[in-house]
């Protein structure tokens, strides 16, 4: 239940944002993170951005994802 996924902000309108999780788009609220900007990477939980990620963190995560086989 505490699952959260990193995503990129591709549209921003006040505290509402459209995020892309590997190409899948979703509306989320970004009022819990500091100064969200277009292009930022954020961690999403239950429809809310709960933390910002550096791009390098996202790249590291992608690398881990690609290195392990998936079901």
């Amino acid at each position, binding site marked *: *239940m505490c699952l959260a996924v990193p995503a990129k902000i591709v549209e921003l309108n006040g505290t509402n944002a459209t995020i892309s999780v590997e190409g899948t788009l979703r509306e989320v609220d970004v009022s819990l993170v500091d100064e969200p900007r277009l292009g930022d990477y954020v961690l999403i*939980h239950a429809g809310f951005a709960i*933390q910002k990620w550096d791009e390098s963190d996202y790249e590291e995560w992608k690398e881990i994802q690609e290195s392990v086989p998936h079901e």
Partner: protein
Amino acid sequence: MNEALNRITELARRVGRNVTFMEVCGTHTMAVSRSGLRRLLPANVKLISGPGCPVCVTDTSYLDAAIELARRPGVIVTTFGDLVRVPGSESSLERERAAGAAVRVVYSPADALALARENPDKQVVFLGVGFETTAPTVAWTIKKAAQGGVPNFSVLCAHKTMPFAMEALLKDQEVKIDGFICPGHVSVITGAQLYRFIPERYGIPCVVCGFEAVDVMKCIAMLLAQIAEKRATVEIEYTRSVNETGNPAARHLIAEVFEESDAGWRGIGVIPRSGLAIRPEFARWDAGQSVTFRESKPHPGCRCGDVLRGVLTPPECKLFAKVCTPTNPLGPCMVSSEGACAAFYRYER
């Protein structure tokens, strides 16, 4: 992966005794089971699951109250999906839905609030279950309902917090824990500072861990290194998301809408100060005000409580994989996708 495993093997040899680490969070339990990591670890390193699956620790009396609400005409009960199949005393939300009750699965509490706005003639109740990760999202929703004057929305609150539950396990002493694999996404909100009292008061190492198998392996190596070097402190493996202080806006929101309360944990009992209750100023959005919580008992043979305290591994329960299966779960640890029994059933049989 091999490098991390070699480091674990080397450190485990240096430690030279049996050690037990508890992965507190259900998402970690799933990562451990799915990766087959348990079988790769040296013989003197044991992983046990803890009470960090929110659905699993939700008391039967709460589910009975949710079912009572769902049976009322004009009520729509909204919930995260995992809770729908958890058995209460006599029924489940899934069975009530099949019998005609309005039970809807939502992705976000904000979706439940939107549903209330779209259905002003219905009472929309959201089942507020989860730890510090989820609590701010529900607090946000309650605050929005209050600000926007949405009288037909309310939350049945069973939010819980981690630190006093972890301390209860240490005080219990039924299981000897040599280190905690601390929940990553709880810590995004609270910061790693949350666990500082554990090494300070109990001398137990803590490492905040990410959710990939390689994160868990690094975390185990960090715990072993602390023991080998006779240190006990809080360290962060999951640096992608976690810092010392957490998310101040989220923490502030939790404090604004909720207050600390005692909470009943399924199979563990009441743990003082381990829950969040809706503050009186938001009582109008508290569905708990309109329902009676009755003492209720889970299935008599269900050992979920012992599994949640790390006393028992799922295969040691007599019901496991015999009468209790994912298609016919008798306890919440088999229902939730993050439950230890569901994880063992799927990956470690």
